[in-house]
């Protein structure tokens, strides 16, 4: 044992004390460092770290808000939302997924193929992620599921909302919705922002055009997850904003009626209000079932639609292009009169054909019409008369009139699938085909054959603008919020409120700021009168389809657009349209306005390969006109009611 004296201890104590002091100073510095660090993290940067912590623990899922509704003019829902029943499963909550799927197979419609694809999907995702087994169960399946739910651990019946269409009649006008595709996300910016997996978006028709407004603002489901991504609890839910509801000008009753009428043919019909351009009906046939697309169309049905000869997926009313046929004769006559090329008193002798520069141009009537004036020529649709008129008129003047009346351009602008068609002239031919215009082509164009291409909508607009006295209107299918009354309607109201007091045309135009398409309104009236004769006088092309009841009387013009020119042989044999093969038959047209005395509506009907306008198209148009006129009073009172609401 060592001994110590007190001086040794004191000296050691001093050394220790001195050296400890230094270490304590270091401690103080370290302490300040830790304080500083705590202050930096917890005071200066706490906002940053709090948001990082929230980013760690919160996950959000977006879900689609209920889609906006599309209503008809009377507020009936054409495209609405319905409750649907879905089945979700969460693999984590299931003792054995395969056994569960097997049990479900006995309860709901679940194919082996579907089961395999579900199993594949489950193996790819996390065990706590929900998977949709079926997104559209029938009520009986759903109630059966709920009955056996206690045996189906992990299965989750869910009630959701999806699009439903009442019937197929407006399938083309309204369009359909279907699951979003990668291409949609690429091409449409608003979808990129919404970014909800599997959301149903508008693919065609108004559903597509109005998609951005109808889709609404998505809702949010915020929940907390742990470090492994497992959902711990739901934190908050934001319902999202329902999409905007749109009212259209369509009358669903007329839609259903027209669709039924056109059920067995391939074609289209279009009814328009001649004063405000409201499209009362726009039907294309055959239709498809838009509901098939909502939950994913099956391959077979889709293939069937694509391969159908009659092209059900195409909206023929706005995307189908057909030569206007004899319906253009109204414009040919008008153009000639307006340009003072011929007088209304021009008489031409029709012997069934004319020869021009060695080429023979036939009238549809082999024997010829004999001596015909303009009124008779329109009434009986004499081709030779219009060969003569268009020869004098020339293609460029005819084209100018046709363009003025809305041919050769997109008239509605609410549909991406709408086609402009073609109004040919000399410049057009050089530009598009690189060739000079031949006189023979003028003659063909004058009776609506050749390069002319129009849509049923364009022809109904043309007819409407003739029927309303020759004033420009803008077709519309959507009713804007202000529901603005067009100038022409104001004029109409004025005229109706002061019967017998006829205002001179120039005053009409000036007072109501109308846009006339004519130089002399007399010419328009002349064409209208001829159309009256074509339907309501013996020998008229649509005489057989006329209504005797004064209330339903209409005035119309038939037309048939040639698919293939008749050979000389066929002409000699007087081959009937019904005797040649379907795809070679002419398209049948009929355009009309009604009622004759005080017109309000214009209609166009097209029947693909229908043969002749008078036989195939006019009878259908006649029935639709009756239906539209029967609905007129309802429409007027609905209009008044809406106006009352607005003011």
């Amino acid at each position, binding site marked *: *044992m*060592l001994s*110590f004296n007190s001086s*040794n*201890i004191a*000296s*050691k*104590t001093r*050394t*220790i*004390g001195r*050296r*400890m002091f230094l*270490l*304590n100073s270091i*401690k103080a510095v*370290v*302490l300040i*460092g*830790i*304080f500083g*660090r*705590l*202050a930096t*993290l*917890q*005071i200066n*940067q*706490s906002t*940053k*770290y*709090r948001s*990082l*912590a*929230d980013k*760690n*623990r919160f996950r959000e899922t977006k879900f689609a808000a209920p889609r906006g509704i599309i209503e008809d003019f009377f507020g009936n829902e054409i495209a609405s939302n319905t409750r649907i029943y879905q089945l979700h499963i969460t693999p984590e909550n299931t003792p054995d997924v395969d056994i569960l799927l097997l049990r479900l197979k006995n309860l709901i419609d679940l194919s082996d193929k579907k089961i395999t694809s579900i199993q594949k999907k489950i193996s790819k995702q996390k065990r706590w992620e929900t998977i949709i087994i079926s997104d559209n169960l029938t009520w009986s399946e759903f109630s059966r599921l709920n009955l056996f739910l206690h045996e189906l651990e992990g299965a989750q019946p869910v009630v959701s909302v999806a699009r439903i269409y009442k019937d197929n009649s407006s399938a083309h006008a309204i369009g359909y919705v279907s699951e979003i595709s990668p291409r949609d996300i690429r091409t449409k910016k608003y979808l990129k922002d919404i970014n909800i997996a599997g959301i149903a978006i508008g693919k065609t028709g108004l559903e597509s055009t109005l998609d951005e407004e109808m889709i609404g603002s998505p809702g949010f489901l915020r929940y*907390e*997850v*742990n*470090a*492994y991504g497992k959902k*711990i609890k739901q934190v908050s839910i934001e319902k999202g904003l329902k999409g905007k509801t749109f009212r259209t000008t369509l009358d669903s009753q007329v839609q259903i009626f027209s669709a039924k009428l056109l059920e067995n043919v391939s074609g289209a019909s279009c009814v328009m209000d001649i004063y405000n351009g409201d499209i009362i009906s726009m039907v294309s046939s055959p239709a498809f079932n838009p509901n098939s697309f909502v939950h994913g169309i099956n391959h077979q049905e889709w293939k069937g639609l694509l391969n159908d000869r009659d092209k059900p997926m195409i909206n023929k009313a706005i995307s189908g292009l057909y030569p206007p046929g004899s319906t253009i004769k109204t414009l040919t006559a008008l153009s000639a009169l307006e340009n003072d090329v011929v007088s209304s008193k021009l008489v031409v002798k029709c012997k069934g054909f004319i020869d021009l520069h060695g080429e023979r141009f036939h009238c549809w009537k082999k024997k010829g019409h004999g001596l015909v004036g303009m009124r008779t020529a329109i009434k009986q649709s004499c081709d030779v008369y219009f060969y003569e008129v268009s020869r004098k008129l020339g293609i460029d003047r005819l084209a100018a009139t046709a363009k003025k009346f809305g041919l050769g351009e997109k008239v509605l602008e609410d549909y991406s699938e709408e086609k402009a068609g073609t109004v040919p002239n000399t410049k057009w031919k050089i530009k598009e085909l690189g060739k000079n215009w031949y006189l023979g082509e003028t003659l063909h164009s004058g009776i609506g054959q050749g390069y002319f291409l129009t849509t049923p909508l364009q022809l109904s607009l043309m007819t409407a603008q003739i029927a309303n006295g020759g004033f420009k209107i803008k077709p519309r299918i959507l009713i804007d919020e202000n529901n603005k009354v067009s100038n022409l309607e104001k004029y109409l109201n004025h005229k109706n409120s002061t019967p017998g007091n006829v205002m001179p045309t120039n005053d009409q135009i000036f007072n109501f700021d109308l846009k006339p398409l004519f130089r002399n309104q007399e010419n328009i009236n002349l064409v209208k009168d001829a159309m009256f004769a074509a339907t309501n006088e013996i020998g008229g092309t649509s005489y057989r389809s006329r209504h005797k009841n004064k209330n339903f009387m209409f005035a119309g013009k038939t037309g048939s657009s040639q698919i293939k020119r008749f050979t000389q042989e066929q002409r000699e044999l007087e081959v009937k349209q019904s005797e040649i093969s379907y795809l070679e038959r002419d398209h049948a047209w009929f355009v009309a306005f009604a009622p004759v005395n005080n017109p309000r509506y214009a209609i166009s009907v097209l029947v693909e390969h229908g043969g002749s306008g008078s036989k195939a198209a006019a009878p259908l148009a006649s029935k639709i006109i009756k239906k539209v006129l029967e609905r007129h009073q309802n429409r007027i009172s609905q209009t008044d009611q809406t106006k009352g609401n607005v003011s």
Partner: protein
Amino acid sequence: MMYNRSIIHSPFSIRSKIFGLDLSLLFSILLLGIISIFAQFSSSGGVFDYYSKSHAIRFCVFFILFLIVSFTPIRFWHSTSFIIFTSLLLLLIFVKFYGIQSQGSRRWVNLFVINLQPSELMKIGIILFLSNYYHKISEGDVNKIRFLLYPVIAILAPFILVLSQPDLGTAILILLSGIAVTWLAGVRWKIFAYLSLLAIVTAPIAISFLKPYQKSRILTFLNPDSDPLGAGYQIIQSKIAIGSGGIFGKGFLNGTQAYLNFLPEKHTDFIFTLYSEEFGFVGSIFMVFLYFFITYRIIQIGNNTRSIFGKLYCFGFANAFFIYVAVNMSMVLGLLPIVGAPLPILSYGGSSMLAIMFGLGIVMSCNVYKNSTVG
């Protein structure tokens, strides 16, 4: 080694012993212990599970041990310090060959009641031994090569043994605790300067001997964002937890980072992170002050004790205690690389708590027997 029998029959009465306790230190330890039980309870997600329960039991048991050690005369600890150190060294050697292996390292020895980690106890053992050693030799001998040899061996032997377990954190703490005592004893500046220089020069070589995970921890420390989901994950999540606590914290049992398992090792090394997330800057500062106060009390006891052994031990322990706290906090605050270093008392872990409570007990014993000489 001989010692006087009279230390068993100490002249101090029970009453004077109790009055000899440093009450502020005692209550600080108790407070820390109570906070630690709540922190462990929160760490278990607000339930009294195995972890929180055994932590609470350990604290109670070791607190009693602390009192027993406190009332045992300082002379006894002085005279047994060499035996304690040697036994721990032997245990470390035993662990090296027969220890329980877990997660790639061999650190534990099975004592049937408890799986003991001798390396943790060695943190105290080295201080005891060196205090004893420098108590013995005269001041003039301190810097003689012959007298430097023993301390160097005494420090390096456990250091290398623990490092090879491998347990870098504890090894460094043993090294630092030992060096601090030699420094206090008066070893020349120059020697420390040379040693530091040597350490800097050999650092790259030493690093090349590190295990890959240890290397990646150092790299991660230098740039935590380089691998945010891998090695940097712990630092980033710890900083997020502490930072998101803000000034007043998220509240008891409301620490989302901990509760949702974003926080790694929340029972042990990152317990301060959990505490800091729930109690914020205010709570953290309180905790730092509590640790600092304990350190301060230990130094005060060292100042008041008469024996060189007592002084060296108290100062040495104060330094070690402060180093544990500073290293752990710096680590979770992203100021140091992640090395396994528990926070005294707060962290889960029997051996660590045993070592700390035992060490504190000897400090308290210094206070109770501050006027006695050790021989």
